[in-house]
């Protein structure tokens, strides 16, 4: 297998978080697990501008960006890059947040207080087309269909 093919086989992940240190941590961890971090953004406008061009397989989205609510970003991302799977990455563990993100199109939800390996599991699961939510909200209704922009 050529290096190019090998690279193409990796899951391509885009990170959105306003804290550089979190992006550094997630990037370092995922890279060490053979995940290709193809881009990053620190806020919603930057993310929306970059993802369309990059078309990542999976987007790791901080729910608490300063400029826009996480669910609004998720809905916009779904319209922009419908094939990308979104994982909400959050400090909030309440059912309300998880359900809201699921309804807005996230395929998974991982708490920042969980071991980083949870994020890796979530990325692999949603890449396979599965959902990855905390057990308490497994039955939450999936996102409704959205019309693209």
């Amino acid at each position: 297998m050529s290096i190019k093919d090998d690279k193409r086989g990796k899951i391509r992940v885009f990170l959105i978080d306003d804290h550089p240190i979190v992006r550094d941590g997630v990037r370092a961890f995922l890279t060490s697990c053979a995940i290709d971090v193809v881009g990053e953004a620190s806020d919603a406008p930057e993310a929306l501008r970059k993802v369309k061009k990059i078309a990542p397989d999976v987007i790791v989205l901080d729910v608490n960006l300063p400029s826009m609510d996480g669910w609004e970003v998720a809905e916009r991302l779904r319209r922009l890059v419908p094939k990308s799977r979104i994982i909400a990455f959050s400090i909030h563990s309440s059912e309300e947040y998880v359900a809201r993100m699921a309804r807005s199109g996230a395929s998974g939800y991982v708490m920042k207080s969980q071991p980083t390996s949870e994020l890796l599991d979530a990325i692999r699961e949603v890449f396979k087309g599965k959902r990855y939510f905390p057990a308490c909200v497994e039955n939450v209704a999936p996102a409704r269909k959205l019309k693209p922009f």
Partner: protein
Amino acid sequence: MKKKSQPKIKVFLVDDHPAVREGVRSYLTSQGSVAVVGEASDAKEALRKAKKLAPEVIILDVNLPSLDGGELARKLRLTVPRAKIIGFSVHASQEYVVRMARCGAHGYVMKDAPTAKLVEAIQQVHKGGLYFPPEMSDAILAPETKPSAEGEDKSALTTREKEVLALLAEGLANKQVARKLGISVRTAETHREHLSHKLNIMTIAGLTKYAIQHGMTSLGLPAQPKT
């Protein structure tokens, strides 16, 4: 003759978010001058390990779920008096910075600052200096005008602060509080900072407990973790 290399600064990390610890560790490890000698995700673990490892610098998340950052800074100062403490926080407000300084921190770095700032801070405090936002130095140096507000009566809170406290205790985030009260998010954050400062309670768990104890919210509603 080969020049003898400088010993690395021994740093200990305290943060409840593994991704943050991972980020700090990977960044600091890539810098030749620093060695990450240990990590902890909560106050108890931090106090236990810090005593054993005797680090030179401790990077301390100001918002741990179990104990507020100021309190932990005080305890760490007693446990490892030689260690320099840097508050590492999502909060930029003067109240948080001043409180950490008064609790014995030697520096304060925002989590959304470029990561290089953390190395600057580590080197500065390791040399015996302080590393705080320069615009807050007057507030840090100003004498305390009142004793610790711990246990202060809730009547010291304004009506708006009580409303914000009740909504926070019911699990609402700052944005939701703002929406509910028809105020801006920034104003809601300011109310929260003020009431935290007045009550000397920095964590949402602590505020929720206070609100329940003082009959400001119902017990039936689940609390929600928040920075």
